[in-house]
């Protein structure tokens, strides 16, 4: 292996990328665009849900009840609707997501110590959001009831408010959110996206880069020369690894600054792992490029082959631990999960070498296998 030849190929590759403006733009813009789009676009925060109320009672008590909703940061009060029909048509037009209906006689019945039924109509279009809304509505209602009961028992039976509270809800559940104390969607998806983007972009870039050489016919310069396969592949890929690593740093910076994700772990570990992952992703692209002949099929296969597994089987949307067995096996076979462990471990969990070395070892093994396979499969004397 001659370093000078590797350098020659790398330099040429780099010059070509640098001067082809469209390609250069793709190399650096795609990851950033993806990061912004996916980071902000996959926001799972459920806040400021627009809603209207229909108050058939129009009393002090009903207004008080309504205030519990309109004052919550989760809801965005859009005003009063005259009747269900009007409100429902608003919901049909996606202007509101939730309708609160307060029946007539609301105040009267409550003051008489009776039960009263209110109703909430929730837009079920966005499944996850509607579930969360349902939970919020129930919680606000439960709080309101607690107040009502405390006041009622205090008035009727002269009980101490604390005793009433102990009687009504003896067990309180105190939730501590670990790793993502503020329950910020950007913290988790924002940092997790580094994994997804850095799985797709380097693979795509590499696959296109190698296939481009095949398509144009300049690959014959390599075939016809005395450069060895290893030299060619190393030289060809070094620029892509460098670009991808640079991209990874940019994305990390975006996660830290733009999304405000904290970094609790070991930066050195993170950098080392990043190099491993980037070479792994490049290896995937390299492998694809050996199988196909045109840029179009390279792009298609790489996109499909990295995006779906990266999103579905990495733990980004659904934890690997709650997957069924076939999905679990698939998740373990792909590199995305290990990188996600490292990213979340480093950013959110503050884990170190002792926790993450296993993941890193697997990534290293993964890239070695891919590269080895690619070098082995690359032929300098082809059949067609």
């Amino acid at each position, binding site marked *: 292996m001659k370093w000078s030849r590797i350098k020659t190929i790398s330099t040429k590759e780099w010059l070509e990328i640098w001067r082809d403006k469209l390609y250069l733009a793709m190399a650096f813009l795609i990851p950033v665009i993806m990061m912004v789009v996916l980071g902000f676009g996959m926001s799972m925060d459920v806040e400021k849900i627009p809603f209207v109320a229909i108050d058939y009672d129009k009393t002090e008590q009903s207004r008080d009840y309504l205030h519990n909703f309109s004052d919550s940061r989760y809801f965005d009060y859009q005003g009063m609707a005259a009747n269900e029909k009007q409100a429902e048509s608003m919901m049909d037009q996606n202007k509101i997501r939730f309708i609160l209906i307060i029946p007539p006689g609301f105040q009267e019945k409550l003051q008489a110590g009776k039960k009263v039924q209110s109703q909430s109509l929730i837009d079920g279009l966005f499944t996850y959001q509607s579930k969360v809304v349902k939970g919020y509505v129930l919680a606000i209602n439960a709080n309101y009831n607690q107040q*009502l009961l405390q006041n009622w028992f205090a008035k009727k039976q002269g009980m101490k408010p604390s005793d009433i509270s102990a009687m009504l809800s003896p067990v309180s559940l105190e939730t501590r959110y670990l790793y993502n104390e503020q329950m910020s969607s950007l913290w*988790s998806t924002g940092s997790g996206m580094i994994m997804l983007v850095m799985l797709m972009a380097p693979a795509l870039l590499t696959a296109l880069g190698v296939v481009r050489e095949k398509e144009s016919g300049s690959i014959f310069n390599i075939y016809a020369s005395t450069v060895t396969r290893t030299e060619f592949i190393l030289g060809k890929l070094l620029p892509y690894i460098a670009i991808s690593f640079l991209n990874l740093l940019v994305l990390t910076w975006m996660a830290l600054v733009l999304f405000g994700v904290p970094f609790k772990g070991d930066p050195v570990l993170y950098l080392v792992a990043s190099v491993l992952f980037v070479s792994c992703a490049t290896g995937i692209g390299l492998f694809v490029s050996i199988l196909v002949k045109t840029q179009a099929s390279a792009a298609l296969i790489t996109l499909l082959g990295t995006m779906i597994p990266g999103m579905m089987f990495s733990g980004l949307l659904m934890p690997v631990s709650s997957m069924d067995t076939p999905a679990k096996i698939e998740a373990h076979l792909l590199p995305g999960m290990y990188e996600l462990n490292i990213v979340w471990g480093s950013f959110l969990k503050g884990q170190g070498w002792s926790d993450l070395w296993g993941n890193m070892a697997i990534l290293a093994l993964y890239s070695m296998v891919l590269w080895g396979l690619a070098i082995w499969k690359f032929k300098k004397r082809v059949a067609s």
Partner: protein
Amino acid sequence: MRLWWLRVFALTQKELLQFSRDMILVVAVAWFFIGEVYVAGSGVKMELINAPVVIMDHDRSEASRDWASQLKAPYYKVLGYVNSQQEAYDLLDKGEVIAIFDIPADFEKRLLLGQKTSIQLELDASNIIIGNLANSYSSLMNAEFNQKWMLKTMKIVDAETIQAPMVELRQKIYYNPEGKATWFMPISEMMTVITLLALFLPAAMIVREKERGTIEQLTVAPLTPFQILFPKILAVEIIILLGVAVSVLGVVGAVFQVPFRGSLILFFFVTMVYIYAVSGLGLFIASVSRNLGQALMVSFMVLMPMMLLSGAWTPKEAMPEFQQYLVVLSPLSYYIDMGYSIILKGATIQLIWWPLLQLFALGSILFWLGLIQFNRQLK
């Protein structure tokens, strides 16, 4: 005029024939409309299913076991009991469990004394969806436990008999009462697929003619640039509408049992307008790409921001404010709004005529710009 249409039809027929002969493309499009939509519908469930948890029970009493017994399928899967904090945290760190329920030693004692007690839930919130849902379900469970305990201490058998003021909230979820994730995701994915193809296919058809040099022959023929482009858009409309039919009736309807509440014809009509709107961008893509690979990449680059500004994954109100203003620029946002409304809400033309008009206007602007760009390149 008749001649004009005859030429357009001849060219449309040619595009369709060519498409049908390109097996790779046909398979890819079929995969997008069937496989991709299926994977999206069945793959990711934004739900809490079998979430692995452990319980750290310092009390080991009947009450504590009673409380813990509520953690069950389909939401939770209790992996067992652990004794030390360290052990529990290790499991959390490794991602083997997503939550620890920490029950204090005096749990039962305090309950019996009528005192308040608390259970600590340590929740892995690195995945925010799971975090939110786990918290929400656990709270509901705890409320149920409280109610049972209250009734027990008050020796009331039937909760209905309590005389106290209470607001009973009856909840009704519209459009998707059972909250099935399999309803939302496949439709969303199908719309994304439509967008990608409406961007890529016209671009691909033009780029391919550029690559093979056949465009030259068309430009010297007595055809206006619009006449060259229009058949390609028509062909793409036909291909995508066919795909949509398969996807809506086959995958979304038959496999995931999503009810189609509105008019199928209206949905196809809206889709047609949408494809027209997006294909203008496709013309742009064709003018900057030199080969199919590039066309695909650039389509992807254009698709991304469109998705961001569309509300395909999250409702608009969840977006940052600046984004909400930019939404008007993404044809996809109008389409998603109208599409969901028609499929799940049964919206009629009266309800959606205004966004439809907006989409048409936006599409016309894009198409016109694309045409200018294409013309400029021809020269």
